[in-house]
């Protein structure tokens, strides 16, 4: 599965690269350069995130995660997960790394889904550093307000989906 995904991703790159190349060669070079510089920018962050997921998983006491976030923790576990998600800094790696760590440590899947949904929607640092400077404040707060119930709904749907 992993190989198929990787191949598919690179086929997309080749197809898009071809389209850009047809437009103009300098544009292609420029695009390639900006993609690679983005990659280099992300490299250390990924390294920290990946190493981090292993160490956080190893450091988390399993009985704590199992008790507070395990599949039997129910609504309380989901609420703890949502609060933790909102407090986690943004960026593409952090939340997934911690989700993986929690899963390895015995957290329930609906709780992890609530966590990663809350993190993706509310990540407070991202809100402050990207959203508010770029978009009208009214839109940002409307978005936050409309997003409040979503992690609960995601967890509920996840629970329903796992019970056919």
């Amino acid at each position: 599965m992993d190989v198929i995904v990787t191949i598919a991703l690179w086929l997309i790159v080749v197809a898009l690269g071809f389209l850009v190349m047809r437009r103009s060669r300098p544009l292609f070079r420029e695009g390639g350069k900006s993609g690679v510089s983005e990659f280099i920018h992300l490299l250390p962050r990924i390294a920290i995130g990946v190493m981090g997921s292993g160490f956080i998983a190893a450091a988390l006491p399993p009985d704590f995660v199992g008790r507070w976030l395990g599949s039997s923790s129910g609504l309380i576990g989901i609420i703890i997960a949502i609060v933790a998600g909102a407090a986690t800094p943004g960026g593409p790696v952090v939340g997934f790394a911690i989700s993986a760590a929690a899963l390895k440590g015995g957290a329930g899947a609906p709780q992890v889904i609530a966590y990663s949904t809350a993190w993706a929607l509310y990540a407070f640092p991202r809100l402050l550093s990207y959203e508010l400077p770029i978009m009208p404040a009214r839109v940002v707060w409307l978005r936050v307000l409309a997003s409040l119930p979503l992690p609960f709904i995601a967890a509920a749907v996840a629970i329903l989906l796992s019970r056919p």
Partner: protein
Amino acid sequence: MQSETSQPVRRKRRAIDWPTVVLILIVGSCASYVYWRDGPATFLEVVWNDSELFVSMLVKVLAGCLTAAFLTILLPRETVSRWVGADSGLKGILVSTFAGIILPGGPFTIFPIAGAFVAMGADIAAAVTLITSWTLLGLNRVLTWEMPFLGFDFVTWRWMAALPLPILAGLFVRAIEKRFKSKAAAP
């Protein structure tokens, strides 16, 4: 249309930002704790396991970065805004959901797009739907970041559970706005 207009405005990035610093602190303390509690053998085992994951991710992340770069050239922001911003109604929300799924890039590409079409007088609900869909369902994010960490089965399941959420977010915004408008209209 000339190429200059299709180039997105890149925000200046610092080499290190404070979420990264917070992360380094968390990881650093967890790593030292594991070393102190379990000794160097376990410590090295964690490093070794994670190195494998890291290497397998790099190939995908590079592909993701190149896709984002080429797409921002091919899809000028104005075009995207026209697609997802022009329509209102449920159709606008569905189009925004789909756009969020396929649009690549980080917050510095998606927020300007959403911000631009709000500024053009487009539907706020569509903008919120776009951002929600991009953060929860965006394929680029799912394939390059989430899958390597959490595996195919789990991610597919999470994706299915999140599928209705952008539409709900858009509808919630509509409902809230309607409420405000009717209140404002009342004497």
